[in-house]
């Protein structure tokens, strides 16, 4: 009982109460703060950019993640252990280091590949492709971490049965493998989407933070707060927090039903 009270008090003070206050601060003057946000064309542009970047990054990471998970679980190849360890690296690299590393390679001025790419008319850093890459980098392992355990659990008997009955690789994947791992993929996609929408540090380094062009929603929160527009900062933060909480609730509601 004492243990339970300590845990509840700890989580209340660390997460629940502060989170509630953000909501309260947002609605302090009624709907004015939120209205101020959605009527500001630069903020709307930032929200749209964040959403577009997140969707592209999630699509890339889902295709990559499902493919790599299949390779890791179903096949044997040299360097497999190393690859599986390296795939977790993005989770423990500082976002600022992620941004720096991309600038060092794709920076237009003196990056390794940057000048050549810009010569060919393709700007990465300080443009949307850089933001997409930074976002894809930080969220890279999330789909893999959800799909690999599911693939291991379902085994490959059904796939082998399908193959022995004459199904080709594509048919086996779409009819047998994908339906079996669909919940794992769903959790991975939802978590990646939340993580991608909220990326801040890496995007700050590669985006250049140009108002109305490469400024994303998280950068708006910082800019509003530092410019003493606390209402606007709270409102933008509230919208982002809403998406994050919704993602967690969706995953937590789906998961137990799937297991039973």
């Amino acid at each position: 009982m004492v243990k339970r009270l300590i845990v509840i008090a700890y989580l209340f003070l660390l997460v629940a109460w502060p989170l509630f206050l953000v909501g309260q601060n947002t609605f302090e003057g009624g709907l004015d703060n939120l209205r101020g946000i959605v009527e500001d064309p630069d903020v709307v542009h930032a929200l749209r950019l964040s959403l577009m970047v997140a969707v592209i990054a999630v699509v890339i990471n889902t295709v990559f993640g499902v493919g790599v998970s299949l390779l890791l679980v179903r096949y044997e190849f040299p360097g497999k252990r190393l690859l599986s360890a390296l795939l977790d690296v993005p989770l423990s690299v500082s976002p600022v280091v992620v941004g720096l590393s991309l600038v060092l390679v794709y920076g237009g001025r003196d990056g390794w590949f940057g000048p050549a790419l810009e010569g060919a008319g393709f700007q990465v850093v300080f443009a949307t492709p850089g933001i997409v890459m930074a976002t894809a980098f930080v969220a890279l392992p999330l789909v893999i971490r959800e799909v690999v355990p599911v693939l291991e659990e379902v085994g490959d008997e059904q796939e082998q049965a399908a193959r022995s009955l004459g199904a080709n690789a594509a048919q086996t994947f779409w009819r047998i493998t994908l339906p079996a791992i669909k919940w794992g993929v769903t959790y991975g996609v939802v978590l990646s989407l939340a993580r991608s929408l909220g990326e801040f540090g890496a995007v700050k380094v590669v985006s250049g933070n140009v108002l109305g062009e490469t400024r994303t929603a998280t950068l708006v929160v910082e800019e509003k707060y530092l410019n003493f527009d606390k209402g606007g900062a709270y409102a933008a933060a509230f919208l982002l927090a809403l998406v994050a909480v919704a993602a967690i609730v969706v995953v937590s509601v789906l998961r137990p039903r799937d297991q039973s």
Partner: protein
Amino acid sequence: MSTIQAARPRGARLSRASGLGLGVAMLWFSLLVLIPLTAVVVTASEGGWGHFWDAVTNEQTAAAIRLTVGTAFGVTLVNVVMGTLIAWVLVRDRFFGKRLLEILIDIPFALPTIVAGLVLLSLYGPESPLGVDIHNTRVAVFLAFLFVTLPFVVRTVQPVLAELDHEVEEAAASLGASRFTTFRRIILPSLTPAIAAGAALSFARAVSEYGSLVLLSGNLPMRTEVTSVRILSSIENDNTDSAAAVAAVLLAISFAVIVVLDIIQRRVTRRG
């Protein structure tokens, strides 16, 4: 079924299509992650060891690294205790509102870090309803780390605790062991690898944290400036070489953590 597995104890060899898939995946992974991270290490070492050492031991940078590593260590200790306690309550207790606690634990993982900073600022900042104002102090750094690392120990310990066999504990208790002895001698040893893995993840996350500190800690040089902030100001001053040097230190820490995790995982699988 068992004969099939005996015949093919491991996965299949690569076919042409899966080999091509592996190639494409590796190309993308290299372009996105491996080459950029290599560029950090190469840039850091370009000026030679002396230059690297100067950048890392610069008074302000050294203070930032000390603060980051020290605070991350302290936060990890708190997480080991609180994370295990939270996992314990979630697995062993049944009560109204448990689902809500489960959601609260995962929120720091999905919440944008800049929002996390603002969230903490609203309760512990200048307009705190509690009357505590910790912003621009080192306590703020500690609190921000504590917030963003909350899920790691809980989520690694929880599944292991749920799988534990009650009978062994009951046997220990029936043989006269006190509850504390049962915990220390029976439960804790089985949880140690999970706690260690969670601690390593939480340490790595704390050391690399950036976004939640931007609004919260004030980033005062020598006092509340953490390593990531230091790297960013080097980037903004167009001093990419020292940024890369400090970034290489952070990468070395992440790498060490991954190696530790791998060793723990191997030991656990060997034990079965």
